[in-house]
């Protein structure tokens, strides 16, 4: 088969702009699935994806489409819907020659529309503008088209107006996929090079790699090498998703499909890696490979209905399906046994928490997210730390660097003031303001990641009455005036409560922690001082007053049984607490201090 008749493309969109519905419609039109099956939105494997309206993992389906008397092979490669999965999205887009950029005509261009468009351009994919939901009464296709032209440089008259739900305009769009998008290059004669753009783990077959063959071919029983990780494997099965797994003997240059090669663990495969023939390898791997980078960290502890071994099992299970998060055991004297977990970003973290709870039916308690820092020590070494507790002694620190991101916010013009105030209070620097239309604006900021991982998104939604959307992309580490604040309970520093923050907000953050602590720690038999310290200097203090009266007035013969029960209950209450020196803190209360959700 000549590559002339192959088209590889993705659909990219902001959340809920209709990506999955369009994919369903395309599969229906190409006869791949029935109407009823389409309802299940086959591209989304996991419940949670459907509920959140986003896709966690990329998938790929192969379809046939008749056009002008020829049968084309269309490979639709799905992409995750959030830029936390920026890297996965970019790999999936690299596997395509083109992308359908879907924008909801009732919503207009949103932050992720822009972010996705940038990624597609960077990946060298041709973009076709698609305005969806044009049949809704509130649709404003003309304004949306203008926004697309203004922000993304796609001419408004070139945009396709469709309704993915009704199918309106979808055939015309498929024709455009064939006529407007280029075919893959015909490099079948060159040594084998296939890009792994996604992977998943199947209980019975092991790891399934999603690949795009760029040159040469893949054959069953071929000995292949994963160039990045340097491991060799024998291919046991090749196939395509139609959308069910359909085995084939070979995958040729330009084609998309799956590879099964006795890979047991998901962590043995990295997305972006190049597969080549072990005997006749390609000279250079395909460009763009980066190991997954975790930017956001949070501690997970067993909640009410579970314990540490169960949590560990759940994480192990989860890791089979998600190679981009990490978890290492953590033992805090205050909080007990748990895990320090690393995530690509905030949304990724939320998804992991939800999957943990849903797929394993366990509750977890999660501490406030923090970011990764770079430390340059006086010996000239640079190390990354993801826990304030790991920060070396201040005297050995030459530079402390924090991660910065390019932050894009799209909002209505009447909320600019509030958003600017919020951003300024979070050390965000406005780079530019771009009017998308008369009443919508895109603001681009340079922002410290630490300032937006915490509660920024919630505040943004509040200020904009839910209208603003944001997206961000890591740009690099920069030196900052950062300090570590320690919280002392009864004069004992509590490691689990220490934070790395910018000096300008240290006192404020510290005070907030004290207020929460004061509410969470029950009164004791003595006064408990609570302090915030930077280095040896106390910058804020509070205290928990002791209880003054707690004694049963009468205890005579007949009262013994009843009073003993009361005392035992009082004692039981204490048993569930964690000790920090002589101070007893209820574990759940401790969690509430750290919990990001309140």
């Amino acid at each position: 088969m000549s590559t002339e008749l192959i088209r590889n493309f993705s659909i990219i969109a902001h959340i809920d702009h209709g990506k999955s519905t369009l994919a369903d419609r395309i599969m229906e039109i190409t006869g791949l699935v029935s109407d009823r099956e389409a309802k299940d939105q086959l591209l989304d494997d996991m419940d949670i994806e459907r509920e959140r309206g986003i896709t966690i993992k990329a998938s790929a389906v192969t379809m046939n489409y008749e056009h002008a008397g020829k049968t084309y092979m269309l490979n639709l490669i799905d992409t995750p819907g959030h830029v936390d999965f920026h890297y996965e999205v970019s790999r999936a887009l690299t596997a395509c020659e083109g992308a359908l950029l879907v924008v909801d005509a009732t919503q207009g261009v949103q932050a992720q529309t822009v972010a996705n468009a940038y990624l597609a351009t960077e990946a060298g994919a041709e973009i076709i503008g698609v305005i969806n939901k044009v049949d809704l009464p509130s649709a404003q296709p003309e304004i949306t088209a203008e926004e697309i032209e203004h922000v993304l440089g796609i001419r408004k008259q070139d945009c396709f107006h469709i309704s993915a739900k009704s199918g309106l305009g979808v055939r015309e769009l498929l024709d455009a996929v064939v006529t407007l998008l280029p075919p893959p290059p015909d490099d079948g004669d060159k040594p084998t090079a296939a890009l792994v753009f996604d992977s998943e783990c199947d209980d019975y077959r092991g790891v399934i790699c999603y690949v795009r063959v760029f040159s040469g071919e893949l054959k069953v029983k071929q000995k292949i090498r994963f160039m990045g990780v340097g491991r060799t494997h024998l291919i046991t099965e090749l196939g395509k998703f139609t959308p069910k797994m359909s085995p084939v003997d070979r995958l040729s240059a330009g084609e998309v499909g799956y590879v099964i090669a006795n890979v047991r663990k998901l962590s043995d495969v990295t997305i972006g890696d190049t597969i080549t023939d072990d005997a006749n390898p390609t000279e250079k791997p395909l460009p763009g490979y980066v190991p997954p980078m975790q930017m956001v960290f949070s501690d997970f502890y067993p909640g009410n209905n579970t314990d540490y071994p169960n949590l560990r099992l759940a994480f192990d299970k989860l890791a089979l399906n998600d190679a981009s998060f990490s978890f290492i055991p953590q033992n805090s004297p205050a909080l007990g046994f748990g895990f320090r977990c690393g995530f690509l970003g905030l949304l990724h973290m939320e998804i992991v928490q939800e999957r943990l709870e849903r797929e394993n039916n366990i509750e977890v308690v999660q501490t406030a997210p923090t970011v990764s820092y770079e430390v340059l020590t006086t010996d000239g070494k640079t190390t990354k730390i993801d826990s304030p507790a790991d920060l070396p002694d201040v005297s050995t620190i030459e530079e402390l660097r924090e991660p910065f991101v390019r932050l894009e916010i799209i909002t209505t013009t009447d909320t600019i003031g509030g958003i600017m105030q919020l951003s300024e209070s979070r050390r965000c620097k406005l780079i530019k303001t771009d009017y998308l239309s008369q009443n919508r604006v895109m603001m681009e900021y340079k922002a410290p990641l630490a300032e937006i991982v915490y509660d920024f998104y919630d505040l943004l939604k509040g200020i904009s009455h839910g209208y603003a959307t944001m997206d961000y992309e890591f740009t690099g580490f920069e030196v900052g005036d950062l300090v570590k604040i320690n919280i002392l309970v009864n004069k004992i520093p509590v490691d689990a409560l220490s934070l790395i923050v910018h000096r300008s907000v240290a006192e404020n953050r510290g005070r907030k922690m004290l207020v929460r602590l004061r509410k969470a720690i029950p009164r004791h038999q003595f006064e408990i001082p609570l302090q915030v310290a930077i280095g040896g200097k106390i910058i804020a203090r509070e205290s928990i007053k002791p209880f003054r009266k707690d004694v049963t007035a009468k205890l005579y013969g007949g009262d013994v049984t009843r009073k003993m029960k009361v005392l035992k209950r009082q004692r039981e209450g204490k048993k569930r607490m964690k000790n920090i020196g002589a101070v007893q803190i209820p574990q759940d209360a401790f969690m509430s201090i750290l919990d990001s959700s309140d």
Partner: protein
Amino acid sequence: MDNQKFDSELCPSDRRAAGLYVHIPFCEAKCRYCGFYSEPIKNHAPQRLVSAIIRELGQYDHIEAFQTVYIGGGSPSCLPAEQLLRLIREITSHWPKPEEFTIEVNPGQVNKSILSRLRTAGVTRISIGAQSFNSDELNFLGRRHSVGDIGRAVEMARRAGFENIGLDLIFAIPPSTSLPSTMLGTGRASDSTLDSWKYSLRSAIDLDVQHISAYALTYEEGTPLQKAVEAGEVAPVDEEIDRQMYETTIDELEKAGFKQYEISNFARPGFECKHNLNYWRNLPYIGVGPAAGSYWNGKRTLNIADVKKYIDAIEQETTVTDESETPDNTQIACETAVLNLRRRCGIILDEFENQTGFDAMKLFTEPIGRYRELGLIEATDGRLFLTRDALPIADSVLCDFSTT
């Protein structure tokens, strides 16, 4: 009294009990704060109850002696004189004269004649439910007697020959509208409440009694007072004031020559209530009457808390026990520790080990260590006891001795 030893001949043994408690569950009217079992006497025939109690006493014929006897309630003094005397004569005729024979009385329910007859019948100690010397507070509590009744009752008891008279007082009563002119404070609610309490204490001291029990007002489940608090009609006294009152009590009474021997109890030397001391030693005792508790043959039991059902059970010769518990050895040790620690003398380590088989210092190593460090417990001279600082917050310490 700190190291006073109880005659080991008497106890523990199935033939001799430390104490006999008789519960008279009748009152003229129920006080708002009272959580004990009692019923208005007008709804019942007192002689039937007394007969039933006498029949229950008959079950303990095999017991040779009681060290102490205590008739409490309710209000034993609301029983008709002849019924009360019949009950007392029944006890004194069956068992040798106890070392201490106490009866609780209400100040408004006694006269010279009944007090003399009680004394003659063998009662040695009178415990008067005075509660307060502030008439507004008496009203607030729902007491039926007047401030004047208290002094008169004390005087009459003394004339009747009682040399061991105790007063019960209640502090931390929510502030009343007005105060007797003799107590002048700064006018702030907290001061007036504290002043009112100081006045009650002073008045009790001035009556030259031998024993004072001072209880912080408690809001017992199901009482009208507790409901009033829930409904927001009554605001309990601030914790800090409550504490000040308690500290004042200890200071004032000690200054006046009383010695604190238990969290809420003060006595002139030699006048500690022996009956109650035995509870805090966790010695076996017999309780008779509706709702009375016993600790006998290793079992803690509670009688039926219903006059009619109790009488029926006695008359039909079925059991009057409603609840029963047999604590194991560790539990007994814990109970003993908690009770002992309520005494200022605390746990007498030798005695504790003889009685329970456990070395208290080992059984409670963790809390002892922690609380010694906090200055809430001391261990010296073979004793382990709460410090003065621990008394107002004793429950928070004692709970750590309630289990091991």
